[in-house]
């Protein structure tokens, strides 16, 4: 038996104990390491391709190399970084603690998910050296079945990564259903847990469809199946339907946990009970369900029937409403609060700002007549970066700064954290707001070369990536400093009420020295018997 009272970071010691651990906290940290490396890699690809676009025509890369760069940027960011980003790191670490459990339901399976992730990642990275893919991360047929790059290796990697995601989803669903501690009713769960539940449902229901689609694509490029091959009477657009049946819900795999973090941040830093708990909880589930019915909005110009386009457009508007209401709920939670402007809350504010812009432009893109114009232009590129990066990544950073003291038992420099947040916010807007302007003028995406008249805007966007990059560089610096030289963190630096703040810092091996019994809601600020 391990020492019940030792902290999880140092008990037991040694690399081997980490590689064979079944502790969800350690697994979460290992994910964090891999996810951070993937983000850096994807970010370097992004900066290189923006550099190429500083001027029109050839600068540093050939057209093919540029195409490989944007494909790798997309594939690494989507499959290796953003899908596992929040659930596999912060989710793994805090889900069991937040519901008062000692671990996830299947700890060995959890470790297996991590290794499957690493195995898949090796395939993805190997594909870079075996003739990097130039299809775009969407692998549209028939281009992907005819190009001479290593589509099979990359899609094999994504296929394997899918199973990592599915198994994590299965694990979370069972954990939430069966592992809640005494008194932890469904409506006493922190909203982050609710959002992870909705995310897990999508992971389990949508990811297998991506798996089989990529499996069919691999078969198509090797022995052929014929169903995507127009020459044989197959239908290349069928691939797009299959692909987006997963990849649109996948957008919610990315954004739902981010919304969960927002709920945690706003309650803690305003010392307020959340406005409309049940709505926020249910809307996660509602979004998860409707998410499966909107994939067709990626195909408004692909020649699907006008009738189908109408249905998909209508449903897309419907899925937007709960997201909007969540924003209103968070803002109403600030009302009459006691607001502390610490770094995590700065990320909360950034999220509201950027996600709102992502939402407004989403409404534009959901309108059929406008989407016909904006489809496959920089407008779409800007929109999904505002949602994925302005939403998910910003929330991830907010969550990371929020829980960092708990995870490592160290504080970081508040001053440098604010500076980094400012750089990221300004840099991000420089990069991507410019791209709204470019897209509205008709600049198509995935263009290696462009018309001279677009040059000033492209150059400005590229400069923005340097500011953004500087922000992340500062973050790397102060986070490392915190790990090795940081001040010891108190048990509950922000005065949070959820269970993770009630246990020691860093948590002990089995999370709690005494199994907690829950008697109230997660955000009972202002109540006499709130346990803080």
């Amino acid at each position, binding site marked *: 038996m391990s020492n019940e009272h030792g902290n999880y970071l140092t008990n037991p010691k040694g690399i081997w104990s980490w590689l064979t651990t079944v502790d969800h906290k350690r697994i979460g940290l290992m994910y964090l390491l891999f996810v951070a490396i993937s983000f850096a890699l994807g970010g370097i690809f992004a900066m290189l391709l923006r550099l190429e676009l500083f001027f029109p025509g050839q600068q540093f890369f050939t057209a093919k190399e540029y195409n490989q760069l944007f494909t790798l940027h997309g594939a690494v960011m989507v499959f290796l970084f953003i899908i596992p980003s929040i659930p596999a790191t912060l989710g793994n670490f805090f889900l069991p603690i937040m519901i008062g459990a000692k671990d996830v339901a299947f700890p060995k399976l959890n470790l297996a998910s991590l290794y499957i992730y690493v195995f898949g990642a090796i395939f993805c990275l190997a594909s870079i050296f075996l003739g990097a893919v130039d299809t775009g991360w969407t692998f549209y047929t*028939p281009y992907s079945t005819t190009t001479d790059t290593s589509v099979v290796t990359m899609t094999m990697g994504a296929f394997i990564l899918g199973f990592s995601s599915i198994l994590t989803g299965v694990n979370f669903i069972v954990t939430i259903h069966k592992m809640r501690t005494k008194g932890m009713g469904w409506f006493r769960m922190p909203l982050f847990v609710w959002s992870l539940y909705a995310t897990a449902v999508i992971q389990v229901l949508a990811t297998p469809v991506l798996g089989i689609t990529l499996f069919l694509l691999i078969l198509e490029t090797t022995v052929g199946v014929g169903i995507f091959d127009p020459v044989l009477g197959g239908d290349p657009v069928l691939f797009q339907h299959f692909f987006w049946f997963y990849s649109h819900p996948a957008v919610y795999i990315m954004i739902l946990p981010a919304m969960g973090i927002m709920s945690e941040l706003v309650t803690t830093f305003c010392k307020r009970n959340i406005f409309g708990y049940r709505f926020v909880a249910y809307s996660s589930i509602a979004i998860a369900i409707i998410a499966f019915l909107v994939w067709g909005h990626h195909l408004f*110009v692909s020649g699907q029937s006008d009738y189908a386009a109408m249905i998909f457009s209508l449903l897309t508007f419907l899925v937007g409403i709960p997201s909007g209401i969540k924003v209103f709920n968070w803002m109403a939670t600030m009302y*009459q609060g*006691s607001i502390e402007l610490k770094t995590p809350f700065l990320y909360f504010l950034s999220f509201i700002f950027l996600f709102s812009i992502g939402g407004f432009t989403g409404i534009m893109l959901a309108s059929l007549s406008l989407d016909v*114009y904006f*489809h496959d232009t920089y407008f779409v590129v800007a929109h999904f970066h505002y949602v994925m990066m302005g939403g998910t990544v910003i929330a991830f950073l907010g969550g990371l700064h929020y829980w960092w003291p708990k995870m490592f038992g160290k504080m970081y420099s508040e001053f440098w954290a604010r500076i980094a947040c400012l750089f990221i916010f300004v840099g991000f807007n420089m990069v991507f707001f410019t791209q709204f302007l470019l897209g509205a003028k008709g600049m198509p995406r995935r263009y290696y070369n462009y018309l001279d008249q677009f040059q000033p805007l492209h150059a400005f966007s590229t400069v923005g990536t340097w500011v953004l990059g500087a922000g992340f560089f500062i973050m790397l610096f102060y986070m490392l400093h915190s790990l090795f030289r940081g001040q010891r963190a108190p048990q509950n630096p922000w005065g949070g009420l959820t269970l993770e703040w009630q246990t020691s810092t860093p948590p002990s091996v089995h999370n709690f020295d005494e199994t907690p019994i829950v008697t109230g809601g997660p955000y009972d600020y202002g109540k006499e018997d709130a346990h803080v």
Partner: protein
Amino acid sequence: MKTEKLVGHGWFPQAATDAASGPDSLFYFIYILSIILFIGILFALGYFLVKYKRSPKNMQATGQLIHHPLLEVAWTVIPFILVMIIFAWGYRDFLKMSIPPVDAMELRITGKKWLWQIEYPRYGVKTVGEFVVPVDTPIKLIMSSEDVIHSFFLPNFRVKRDVIPNRYTRIWFQANREGVFQVFCTEYCGAGHSEMLATLRVVSNEEFKEWLKVGSSGGDIPLPQLGEKVYTKYACNTCHSIDGKTGVGPTWKGLYGANRVTESGSVKADDNYIRESIINPNAKLVKGYSPVMPSFAGLLSDREIDAVIEFIKAQK
């Protein structure tokens, strides 16, 4: 005539069709609504941040409001109504833009890596990279691809549709003014994707008839000049440079008379070799290049092929 600039007219390129007013006005409608709402959000955030900032006087929240039925109904119902209006507006214009009038002039568009070929079935005319249509006339494009998926995008007309192998898709438009407009390929299709451009020239009815007679064939321009025209018009320049740079295909600089190394041996780039490479590009492929060039058989007249050969000769 130069292609009209896309930038410099507010958010969108200047419209060249009446149909653009639908999506444009919808955009500005959402845009203004968004700005109002966004300013509201920022104002509320700012106000809360100042008013409820944590201070020795405000260490605990002063209220724990978790429900406000009126507010909740308002912020559910109002956005719902607004998005339904936006939905109906978008769908109406989408339908208008996808159903062509019965009397529209029909053009066949073929996309292939990496050029647009335009055919006028009614007049037996074929062009590449540049097409000419009369003003104030509905034009219907019937499109298909010969290889991968492309997408035909006319920014000034707010229309776009994917161009798919073994299937026909269509769009239509009606120009309300003359000018030269940009065409983009917007579905990623490989190394030459960003060079897969074309221009649309909108002219008066008389000019269009004139163009059908002479303009489309090249008339009696001297061969080297005609060759230069073909070089850009048929998008040879997408892959073949004339300044010695290596592109998707070999450069034309110093090509004529040089020895070409192929997989199966070596061949001299004389008139016959160049002609064969235009008609059947993959017959003697130069080592190190991919077999991606489409055949121009039936697209170029004999005179135009002669002109290309003369033009290549001139690139020393």
